[in-house]
């Protein structure tokens, strides 16, 4: 009975309801083309949100992901065009830089005991500033055709990046749910002191998670560049808020200790479906934002209500 009232279940019901209502509003909504295309649009935020789930489960937050995305996007362009490196190497280097940017977040948070909100608020400005300094407001275009397979192409009829997202999400779900790393992540979020006293490598795990968050943002950057065929330094601005919204909508406690990847994926789908379905139904985009905000608050309210009843 308790299992049935879990946040994920409530959310899944909500997703199905939303899909039914939205499908009745526009006959374009439930076409295979549209669904796959929406999956394509969801991937960048999705990759970031999946790793953000780990970050938030530890009781932390990573606001710098949007800036890392922008920085890596610029660097891919600069490495390839200005420095003449082969594109695969440029992408590889971009992933390294993104991971390193996340690693720095982790070091600031664990070594210098800066609260994650402050630390990543700082690097949000820092990384964006570096990206803008490097780009000098120029954009890079003219990527080779093979590169667009990543962001615009298909594999077996499904958008390439959706495969990538699926693989990352499945691995993340397994790691969080079934491994000692996942267990340690929950323990840190519920009671960091007790986790430390139990001999868990708290700092090491946190650094690994923030580094992964940087890596996810960098991967999202490569996909983003490939999807829109160009590189600009303002890419990814505000992505952190979309990702956090999906994670929290998915039932992850902002105080840490609770949350699942399945919830995050459901959260992502609900948001994307609302955005797309409402625009197809002719609702203006500001109306959509209002609705997403309302859905977020309502879902959490309902979930808390059930949770409280379940406890007493």
């Amino acid at each position, binding site marked *: 009975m308790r299992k049935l009232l879990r946040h994920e279940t409530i959310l899944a019901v909500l997703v199905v309801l939303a899909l039914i209502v939205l499908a009745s509003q526009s006959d374009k909504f439930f076409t295979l083309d549209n669904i796959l295309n929406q999956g394509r649009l969801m991937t960048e935020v999705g990759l970031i949100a999946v790793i953000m789930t780990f970050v938030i489960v530890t009781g932390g937050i990573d606001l710098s992901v949007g800036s890392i995305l922008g920085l890596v996007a610029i660097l891919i362009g600069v490495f390839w065009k200005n420095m003449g490196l082969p594109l695969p190497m440029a992408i590889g280097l971009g992933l390294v830089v993104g991971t390193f940017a996340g690693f720095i977040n982790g070091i600031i948070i664990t070594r210098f005991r800066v609260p994650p909100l402050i630390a990543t608020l700082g690097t949000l400005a820092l990384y964006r500033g570096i990206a803008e300094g490097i780009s000098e407001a120029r954009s890079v275009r003219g990527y080779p055709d093979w590169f667009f397979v990543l962001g615009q192409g298909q594999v077996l009829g499904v958008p390439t990046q959706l495969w990538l997202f699926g693989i990352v999400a499945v691995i993340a779900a397994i790691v969080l749910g*079934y*491994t*000692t790393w996942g*267990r*340690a992540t*929950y*323990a840190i979020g*519920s*009671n960091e*002191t*007790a*986790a*430390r*006293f*139990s*001999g*868990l*490598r708290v700092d090491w795990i946190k650094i690994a998670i923030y580094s992964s968050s940087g890596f996810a943002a960098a991967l999202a950057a490569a996909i983003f560049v490939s999807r829109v065929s160009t590189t600009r330094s303002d890419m990814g601005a505000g992505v952190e808020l979309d990702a956090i919204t999906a994670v929290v909508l998915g039932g992850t406690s902002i105080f840490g*200790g*609770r949350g699942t990847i399945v919830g995050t994926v459901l959260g992502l789908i609900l948001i994307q479906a609302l955005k797309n379905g409402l625009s197809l139904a002719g609702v203006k985009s500001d109306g959509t934002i209002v609705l997403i905000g309302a859905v977020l608050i309502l879902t959490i309210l309902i979930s808390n209500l059930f949770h409280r009843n379940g406890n*007493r």
Partner: protein
Amino acid sequence: MTALVKLEGLSKSFAGIRVLKDVDFDVQPGEVHALLGENGAGKSTLIKIIAGVHAPDGGVIRIGNEELKAITPHEAAKGGIATVYQELLLFPELTVAENVFLGHAPKTRLRTLDWSQMRRRARQLLDSLDSPDLDVDVKVGTLSVANRQRVEIAKALSQDAKVLIMDEPTAALADADVRRLMTVIKRLRERGVGIIYVSHKLPEIFELADRVTVLRDGALIGTRAIGDVTEQSLVAMMVGREIGQLFPKPEPQVGETLLKVSNLSFGDRVRDISFELKRGEILGVAGLVGSGRTELALTIFGITPATSGTIEIEGRAVTISTPKQARNLGIAYVPEDRGLQGLVKPMTIGQNISMAALHRITNGIFINFKAEAQRAADAISQLGIRARGPEQVVGQLSGGNQQKVVLGKWLETEPRILIMDEPTRGIDVGAKAEIHALMGRLAQKGMAILMISSELPEVLGMSDRVLVLHGGRLVTTIDRAHANPESVGAAMTRATLAQEAA
């Protein structure tokens, strides 16, 4: 004389479980009425009903001559009922005077706060509580637990409390502060305040109480005048059976040295401490609060790695700079603060028990959930943890059972050296005896146990030798044969030779 508060036939259920059954209880003016019972006996529920936090399902409450079905917090305040909770509810960023008068501060004619009157009255209240040294202008956050408690009592008195409920007031106090609190309570009694005193510590109850009421499993076992009971009869009333021996200690089989600490220091908290711990031995560590007992444990366990000195395990020099290293060397630490350091309360018993030994239930990557549940079930039956099963959340267990979970977690690591910091703090008599018996059995099996405790009877009852610390230094080591309250107490308070030598 009319009772200040009188409860008749009180009942209360939570989610279908009856936690109080037909309980009678009353407080007279000018008496200390002790409320005793094991954890889960219904003491907390009873005092919360009197304080107006919970409404009873049945029964009658009389405050003075007024008859009520339930007390609201407002009526409790009006009736002069105040509570000093175990976890003190003060505002750390406000001053002493502000905390005392929060919500009912004296006002000037212009309806602004009358600061001078507020400070003057706070001063008077604290003086009347034997605390002329307590400054009314300091922030409460900077005060010691004992001083914060006095502020809380002053706050209760500032509202003209006639009934004062004290929930485990000495749980976190050092001996000297306990003495002082006793004086304060006796003074309040002389003024005609009725005091409901909840505590596990029987000596305090014999010193203070006029009457004692024992609850067990939500039922009233009896109310007696203090002269009519003995320590044994009270314990029997509480647990419903005779507890054979207070400190069941089997004959120790002391073997070779397992842990050798030489000149160990951590800053100025732990200074130049040397001792040996042998297989099968229980080595007690006594000392006042701030003497460096816990700090010594934290240094050996790698939370605050040693700044100088050496640690040898089985004759081999080791460096310990993280708890993980300590664990891998076979050291376990059952910490002082169960809720903060020992357990992840929102997690299940199974998850907590496996937490320090995750490697035992994985194949390197994946957790074997079946093995985890099995090991937890084993621990539950071996340690006698009273729980619904491995899936139950630890936060729902009583203190004694939580402590057994912490112990179970560390026994999973198969330690050779077990450090126990306040192993029975805040635990009821029955669970206490079980944990003591378990310690005896573990030592007999060859485990070396370092036991830190501020309860002298526990130190004397369980230890083969006693280390006495003062100001971060080892004052002396006393054998079981020579350890008595006088010798250990004297060493704890008077730093002798060791300090002069330094």
